[in-house]
């Protein structure tokens, strides 16, 4: 199962980032759920260039892939929807409170319910709905490298229906559980 995605900046814990090596995939790529492991295709920087690296990423990245066996996945965290991105969070609150402000202003002045009700709908319904529509959950996958160090990459699935997204997530969870169960069975034997 192949799914297009957009990579995000990984967020490793302080402890993990001290000893680990996050993968700063850039731009768009794909995640493939194969029996043999999770394969990530994307652009990785050839060298780290602090700050400017993000602006010139297309120049300093190269197409490559990474394989993550399901047995080596330590954590697969899926952040909640709109709360995952700081920018959207700020935008959300600004627009929401802005809408509420406008609502109060219209109530305080003599504009009446003809203006106040549509403004209220915009503030409480339309703005959150628009924000939620454009936002998607972010997946953070932390795994163990052969050296024992930890690594992480993050991605958001390209716009797909909720059904497709849940199929992807369920399949990933299924493969992880199956790999874990197999390892457990082997160790018992």
């Amino acid at each position, binding site marked *: 199962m192949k799914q297009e995605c957009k990579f995000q900046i990984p967020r490793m814990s302080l402890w993990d980032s001290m000893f680990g090596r996050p993968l700063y995939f850039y731009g768009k790529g794909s995640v493939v759920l*194969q029996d043999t492991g999770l394969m990530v295709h994307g652009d990785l920087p*050839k060298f780290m260039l602090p700050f400017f690296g993000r*602006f010139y990423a297309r120049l300093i990245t190269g197409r*490559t892939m990474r394989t993550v*066996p399901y047995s080596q996945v330590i954590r697969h965290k899926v952040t909640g929807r709109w709360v995952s991105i700081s920018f959207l969070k700020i935008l959300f609150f600004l627009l929401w409170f802005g809408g509420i402000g406008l609502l109060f202003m219209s109530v305080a002045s003599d504009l009446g319910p003809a203006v106040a009700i549509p403004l209220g709908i915009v503030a409480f319904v339309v703005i959150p709905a628009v924000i939620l529509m454009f936002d998607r959950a972010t997946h953070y996958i932390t795994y163990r490298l052969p050296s024992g160090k930890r690594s992480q990459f993050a991605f958001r699935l390209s716009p797909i229906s909720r059904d497709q997204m849940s199929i992807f997530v369920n399949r990933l969870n*299924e*493969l992880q559980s199956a790999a874990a169960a197999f390892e457990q069975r082997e160790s018992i034997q």
Partner: protein
Amino acid sequence: MTMATSTESATIERIGPYIVERKIGEGAHGTVYAAHHRDKPSTTVALKVVENRGNLDRLLLEPEILSKLRHPGIVGLQDYFIDNDRLVVSLEFLNGGDLKAWSKAHGQFNAAETRDFMRQMASALQHAHEAGVLHRDIKPANIIVVEGRDGPRYVLTDFGISRISEGLQVSRKTGGTYHFMAPEQLRGRPTAQSDLWALGVVAYQLLTSELPFGGETVKELAAEVLYKSPVPLASLLKDFHDDELAEIIYGTLEKQPANRIDSAAALLQQLGGGHQTKTPVSQNVRVQALTIDAQAQRKVRRYTVGCVMSALLWSGPLLTIPTTIVLAGLWCFYQGQRAIFHRHLLRGSSFTLGGLLLLLIGYVVTQAFLPAVLAGLHAGGVDVNKFGSAIILGSTISIVLFSLIFVPLTVYLFSKLRAQHREIGLRRAITENSGDTDKQLDILGAMAQELTEDLVVRQKYAEALLAHGRQREAVVEAKLMLNEDPYNMAAGLLLAHSYFELGLNELTISVCDAFLDIAGYCFEFRELRDLASQSAGVVQ
């Protein structure tokens, strides 16, 4: 139950409620009769009778699978029952022969006919895969051709070894016909994409009357399937000009599922067909004004011109001399960092330092340039106090604006240009496979050298090396791949295979053990390890 009735002719046979008309065929999976239901004498059905050889559950799998499917490209199930310890499946009666015989009589397919065939089969496979069913044995003998007014209708039959996709596969699943088996199916791990591979093989065979992968023995055939790329269509067919179709067929014959066309739906989309569309063959001919290669070359020219123009437009307001120095500095810095990445430390450090120096010089010159311009204007009798501030302000605004627009644009076009060069290189590597293996290896080798981090290219190069008996170099390539992506199973298998072919059994075992430690469910390594252990005479 088969019986001859006392009141009817002795030649009339009955199987359950069906009256047998004649025998249509016989195969490994049973005997097929033309028959009709006693209550519906005008409707002929195909009655498939399979003897129970001890595993009734396995027998019942085919009707169970067929009951999930309803598509014009898949044989329809009418009824099934157990009769006298035999499974009887009543199927839609298809008035036609199998594709193998039909194509012999019809002759080689042209591009439009092949497209039509692939479109119909892709639509059928899309339906089956969405229902979680993998066919696993697509070949001309399992496709029935029914001739109609709108052209031939292709129907997929014999789901005898098909299965319903399950979770993680931890043991080998055998079955299929060797010539049509995908590399992963050959290793015992069929996926939905294995059906696309088989479809690609059939399409290739219909076009050229030759199989893309051959061999005297199963071992030779397996080696071709696993590592060799097929002979390009253009070198087998002189008047074949449908490059797009060739690309699609090569796309289905990619060794790695991750690089292959990823679903039947995607294949159908590439073929330009919607679900269950039925377009007359004559309308399927796509007139291509330019070949794919010519289109790619045109794109390269466009991107190059765009890139240069954009860079010039950026450098215009910044004034040429300092910008050139800055650009040269950036280029040197980039090359230096790449060289360090590839562990060429001396060259890398000198380029990096040189780049930084040039950037510094560029900065100083930029800083000195505007005062120099102002001084020049002053010397020419212009009142710089009056115009100076305006010039500086104007230049600053234009620098910021142009940098915001043209720097990202230049970078974008440059990255597109690079991607296009990669595509052209890979395409050339495939089409150069018409016999000149050295040339193909040269192209792939040069690409692997240039795009060190691109594991798709490296893998193709390593596979080509192994296919041409250059195991030692394949070992090096596989190790370089593992250096980049330590858990890459394909690279691990390549390395283990190369060691095994070199007779280095101990090393084969150690590579297999390392991967089995990580993912014990990868039975491919277990099998290879067993083979190496047998060869080495190691006592388990």
